Structures are given as C-alpha cells and as structure tokens.
C-alpha cells in the first residue's frame, strides 16, 4: 500500500511539474510574441506616415493571426477573462488602422503591451503573487 502511494505521489508530482512547465512555456512564449510584434509595429509606425500602409496592415494582421493561434492553447491554462482584453485590443487596432486613427492606435498598442507585461508578472511564482 505504501509503495502504491509513493508511486502515485511520484506520478502526481511529475504531472504537476509537467503542467507547470507547459503553462510557463506556453504563456511566456505567447505573450512575449505579442510584445515583440507590438515593438515591431511601433518601429514600422515610426517610419510610416499613414496607418493604412501595407507594412502596418500586414504586421497587425500577423499579430491577430498569431494571437488567435495561441489563444486556444492559453485558454486551457489561464482564465479566459484575464486574456480576452488582448484579443479585444487587437480588434480595436484593426479598426484604427482602417480609420487611420494614429492616436487611438498608439493607445491600444500601449494597452496591449501593458496587458502582456502585467499578465507575465501575474503568472510568475513570486512572493508577491503567493501572498
């Protein structure tokens, strides 16, 4: 019985470690990807006069495509409510691109970076989060 328990214990710890690692890797890579793409959009935006420029449109489309691809995997691990703002902001950004509303686009971009940054901070195991 005791051996059986120890085997179970080992398997459960292994499973928990696997889940934690998978969460860490998936969430970090997805959010870092969004952050990197945001920085890339900022760089492109600085070089262009209009948001309707093809490079910006493509960059935002790529951002949306990659986010949609990662979101389903993230929803298995994090509360959907915590990450839905990212999808909403990307939708708004597409609208601002269509309207060439540069100021609102910048605000959305900053909000997006903030969401990613705060969620990355929120998901890590540190004393602040534990307490």
């Amino acid at each position, binding site marked *: 019985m005791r051996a059986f*328990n120890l085997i*179970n*214990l080992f398997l*459960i*710890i292994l*499973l*928990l470690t696997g*889940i934690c690692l998978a*969460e860490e890797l998936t969430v970090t890579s997805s959010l870092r990807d969004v952050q990197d793409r945001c920085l890339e959009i900022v760089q492109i935006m600085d070089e262009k006069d209009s948001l309707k420029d093809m490079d910006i449109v493509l960059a935002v489309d790529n951002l949306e495509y990659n986010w949609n691809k990662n979101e389903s995997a993230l*929803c*298995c*691990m*994090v*509360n*959907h*409510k915590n990450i839905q703002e990212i999808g909403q902001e990307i939708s708004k950004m597409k609208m601002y691109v269509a309207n060439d509303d540069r100021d609102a686009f910048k605000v959305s971009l900053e909000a997006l970076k903030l969401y990613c940054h705060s969620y990355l901070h929120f998901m890590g195991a540190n004393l602040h989060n534990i307490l």
Partner: protein
Amino acid sequence: MLTIIFRSILIYFIVLLVYRLMGKRQIGQMQPFELVLTLIIADLATIPMAEVSVPVLHGIVPLLTLVVVHFMLTLITMTSQSVSKLISGKPTIVINPKGIDYKAMKKLSLTTDDIFAALRECGYFNISQIQYAIMETNGKLSVMPKADFSPPTNKELNLSADESFLPIILVSEGKILKENIVLAGYDNQQVEDLIKQQGGDKLKNVLILTVDKMGQGYLQMIEKEGKCFQTKRLVPHESL
C-alpha cells in the same frame, strides 16, 4: 451549457479519483487535517465546474497538489509520533474511574451534554457504568465499561462456541460472482445444482446465496423467505 455538463462529469471523476487515492479511511474517520482537505476539495471542485472561463486545469492542479500534501502529511504522521500528535492531536481520557475529568472536558471544549450524547451513541445511558471513556483524535468516543456492566464473553461463561467464518457470496441478485465461486471452489453448474438442492428454482430468481468455510450457507430467493442450510462440501481453508 454542454460545456458545463462535460466539465461537471470530468471534475466529478477527478474528485472521485482524489478520494480513492487518499484511501477509504478518509470517508469514515477523519483526522483534523483530513477534514480541512475535504472542505477545501468540495469548494475547489465547484469553481471550474460552474465558471466556464476558468480552465479545468485550475481545478485539477490544486486538487492534485492537495493530494500530494495529504500523502506527505500522512507519511510524516506515520513515521513521526511527535508530528502526528501536533497535527492530529492525541486521544484524551474524559471519563476515568473517578468520573468526568473536568479539565480534559474543558480542554476539548466539550459540555456534559456532548459527553452524554456520545455515551448514548455507544449504548451506555448511565455514566456510572463507565470505567474509562477516551475521546479519539477523530472526535469519536471509545468507551470501556466497568466490569459489572460489560457483556460476558463465552470464555468467561465457560461456553464453547464454534468459530464463525466469513461467508462467501456466490450469487447476488441473480448474478454469479465469478471471483467468489473460484474462491469457494465451485463452478457455475455446481452453484446452480446447489440452488436446486436447496429448493430454489432459477438462478435469476436468487436474491443471495452464500457459503462459508464450514459449508454453512444461506439462500434467499427474490420475494421469498431466506433459509440457512448445511452442505457437506467445505470451502478450502486457504480461501479465507
């Protein structure tokens, strides 16, 4: 809504698995740390069940973490007496030959009503019948009656009595229990023959059929009176 249904089924089986992993002791005799665990598990399981935006993993991970903590705590309490005392407490004598131990009663936050209720549950209605009563760590009272009030044993009465043996259930509600008939050294045909010998008709009408090591059996057909019988055939000793 379908998601909630599937999630509820999934979480139900996970909680069932968690309780199975923690052992049968969990259900009947809970130590303080096991009670805490049960309360937390009940709460944890409902969150991902009802809230669709919360991933099922948010319910599974804390449940499994608690199982790990429980295993570890159990292992520690099994190996260390002092930790066991710290976590589960120790049995306390609440009634001794002098009567109720007032200090112990207050230490356990008990009232005399609680003690009397527990004594009545044990079948004793008068405190003068009690030699010792011990409050166990799981909150149950163990009672040792005074010699005058304890039921006499066969040994004390110098009576000889046959040992009783565990009966093996061969048929339950019309179904032959294959593992048990092998254990008893029977086969399907022999079971059916036994039913007929004892006045039964069809196998499907048998409510219960048992035999023990000494060949004593019990047969009850559905909606009929049960009867004891004796077969010549003994169940192999190594079976029980």
